[in-house]
């Protein structure tokens, strides 16, 4: 069996792909639409706009890495080449929350774990009722979810869950808690577990293998290793985008070559950190100071268990079972809701999550094949006590995320720890440790139930992650409450749209990729009609 590399073949057949690192002199590129960012938003927008006959330029700051680069199936290479800031090294401004976010052609879709949920109905209802969003009701979104699910082969995982996911399923069953099979965007999946390092068999229907190749076939141009520094503007119009080519060696140092991009319309699709940062760097009008505000991250807390059986949480579809038992229990705006899932565990990130050293780490790693981990995605941004964080510019112009944890969120953290420990013991765990510096390895639910409420609810003592960056350019029909309107059109700049997860006015309450795909499909289709009209 051989696995042809889409891009090697595509480029040979005439796809227009420019590696900015190799440019030797300043360039000007022209298009009908320039899309900045090639992740979930940029990828879908590129396909739809190019399909409509528009000349599309798709710009990515990260490198083009394809299945041919993923064949080693190694963590270290993946973090270095495919993630922002080298993977688990990136964090919020104070270092308290680790950020996992993709940074290559395809963005986070190249490295995510394939979970593909529709935006939960209560979330869409909340947007309409509380955030002055129109056009995205449950009924209005349905055809777009249908379309993107079909486009990306999204279907509930039909194979038995791996042992790590089985722990979650079994625990829920024992306790009478809701659980469900996760829909995944895969085609010909090997059930290997290596989604996070780039799929080496092109089974994952990421933007890298689906919409971007389609856009290239439609004549779009892809430019990678080009960081857009600034959107120049005059009279409420973007006049040009100015980009810096990045060198191939470290992927982040400018080569000194600058690229000028001229287009009728610009689409910002860099995601919830980079899109607000680009607009901030460009000093775009922000009369109501909404730019970079309400950044939502689904704060993640974890519990690890030692199971009697071998779990091998590194093998098998990484996420196939989830539980919403605690998600809407208190309504959209009651005590904080959370979704329970499991993460895959590989030795590098696993040892870092354990956050142990010496004898305790040695013991933890000795039990590694028996390790199960459960995570809770906390649903932030639905109440005034959970306004999320904010993006500002660091000295080098890159985004810096400030995110404080309110008492409301801490209460969610504590309840999530208790839920996860109860679930793991119900599934047969020998020992459970919540990811907190003071947590011991509890050997019974009774012990855990007693000890967990006493843990200090503090940053740095608590292990916190995020892999879902949302908000910062919120959509709202009310310009005082949002940066863009419900179609992603910038409130002050006529030829600028934002089509990515930064437009979400709250967190999603589920892994956000399908929410970005469907919302972008809807808004990009409207944009195509407007531009052709």
């Amino acid at each position, binding site marked *: *069996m*051989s*696995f042809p590399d889409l891009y090697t073949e595509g480029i040979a057949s005439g796809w227009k792909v420019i590696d900015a690192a190799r440019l030797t002199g300043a360039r000007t590129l022209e298009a009908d639409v320039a899309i900045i960012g090639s992740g979930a938003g940029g990828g879908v927008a590129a396909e739809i706009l190019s399909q409509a006959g528009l000349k599309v330029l798709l710009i990515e700051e990260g490198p083009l890495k394809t*299945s041919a680069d993923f*064949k*080693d*199936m*190694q*963590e*270290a290479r993946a*973090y*270095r080449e495919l993630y*922002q*800031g*080298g*993977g*688990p*090294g*990136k*964090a919020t*401004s*104070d*270092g*308290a929350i680790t950020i996992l976010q993709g940074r290559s052609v395809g963005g986070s879709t190249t490295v995510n774990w394939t979970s593909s949920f529709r935006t939960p109905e209560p979330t869409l209802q909340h947007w309409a009722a509380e955030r002055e969003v129109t056009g995205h009701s449950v009924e209005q979104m349905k055809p777009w979810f249908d379309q993107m699910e079909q486009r990306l082969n999204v279907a509930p995982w039909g194979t038995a869950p791996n042992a790590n996911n089985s722990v979650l399923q079994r625990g829920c069953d024992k306790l009478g808690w809701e659980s469900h099979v996760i829909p995944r965007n895969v085609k010909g999946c*090997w059930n*290997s577990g*290596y989604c996070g390092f780039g799929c*080496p*068999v092109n089974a994952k229907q990421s933007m890298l293998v689906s919409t971007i190749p389609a856009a290239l076939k439609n004549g779009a141009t892809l430019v990678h290793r080009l960081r857009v520094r600034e959107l120049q503007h005059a009279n409420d119009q973007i006049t040009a985008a100015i980009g810096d080519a990045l060198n191939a060696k*470290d992927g*982040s140092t400018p080569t000194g070559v600058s690229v000028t991009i001229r287009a009728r319309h610009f689409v910002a699709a860099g995601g919830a950190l980079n899109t607000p940062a680009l607009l901030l760097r460009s000093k775009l009008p922000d009369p109501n100071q909404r730019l970079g505000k309400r950044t939502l991250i689904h704060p993640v807390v974890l519990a690890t268990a030692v199971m009697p059986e071998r779990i091998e949480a*590194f*093998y098998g579809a990484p996420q196939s079972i989830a539980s919403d038992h605690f998600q809407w229990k208190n309504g959209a705006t009651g005590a904080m809701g959370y979704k329970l899932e499991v993460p895959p565990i*590989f*030795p*590098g*990130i696993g*040892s*870092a999550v354990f*956050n*142990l*050293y*010496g*004898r305790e*780490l*040695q013991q933890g*790693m*000795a039990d*590694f*094949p028996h390790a199960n981990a459960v995570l809770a995605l906390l649903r932030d941004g639905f109440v005034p006590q959970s306004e999320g964080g904010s993006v500002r510019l*660091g*000295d*080098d112009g*890159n985004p*810096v995320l400030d995110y404080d944890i309110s008492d409301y969120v801490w209460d969610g953290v504590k309840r999530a720890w208790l839920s996860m420990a109860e679930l793991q013991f119900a599934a047969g765990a020998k020992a459970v440790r919540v990811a907190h*510096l003071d947590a011991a390895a509890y050997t019974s639910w009774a012990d855990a139930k007693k000890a967990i409420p006493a843990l200090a609810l*503090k*940053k*740095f*003592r608590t292990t916190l992650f995020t892999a879902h960056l949302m908000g910062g350019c919120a959509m709202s029909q009310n310009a005082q409450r949002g940066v863009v309107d419900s179609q992603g059109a910038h409130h002050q700049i006529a030829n600028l749209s934002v089509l990515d997860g930064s437009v979400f006015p709250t967190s999603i309450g589920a892994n956000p990729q399908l929410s970005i795909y469907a919302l972008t499909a809807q808004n990009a289709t409207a944009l195509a009609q407007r531009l052709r009209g």
Partner: protein
Amino acid sequence: MDRKLDSMVDAAGLPRRDFLKVGLGLSLAVTLAGALPGCSGGTKAPAPDLAFLQPGDVALFSAIIPVVVLDLGTRSTAEQQQLLRQTLANIDGTCAGLDAHSRGELRKLFDLLAIGTLRYVLTGVGRWNEASSEQLEAFLERWRASRFATLNAGGNVLVRLVAGSYYVIPATFASVGYPGPLEAMFKAVNA
């Protein structure tokens, strides 16, 4: 432990008020380091073959790697040297790949730990290469147990950087029962 650290901070006449402004992460440590003469911060050259770690940082990590990952001590001398080198290279690569803000924060932490007097006060360690494993463990324990968020942050980042950088090395996989990339798939894609 914490009380002992407090009294040491007091005894050293350091600006304790700054220590109490918790919640700012490592920026605090920086304030402290910036106040001291000789803490030039980021102007020194990286160690040979490395992009971010300076010679003083290499000394720090060379000392704590064997204390964080005991697995290293179970190996032959030749293997130990090889793994130590690879772990340092991985730590260096992670640090170098961060954005400027994060690199700045780490530089402050590492500089703080490179200043003799301050290091002794904060960690109980004189020279990294002369410290016993008990002293190094006590340092990590004290920082992680402290009620000062800055020290927790520092203790966490050191432990995580070391553990994560060690266990991504394929030569360590067998020790944790990870057979490596799923064999059938690995063979198929590399055929």
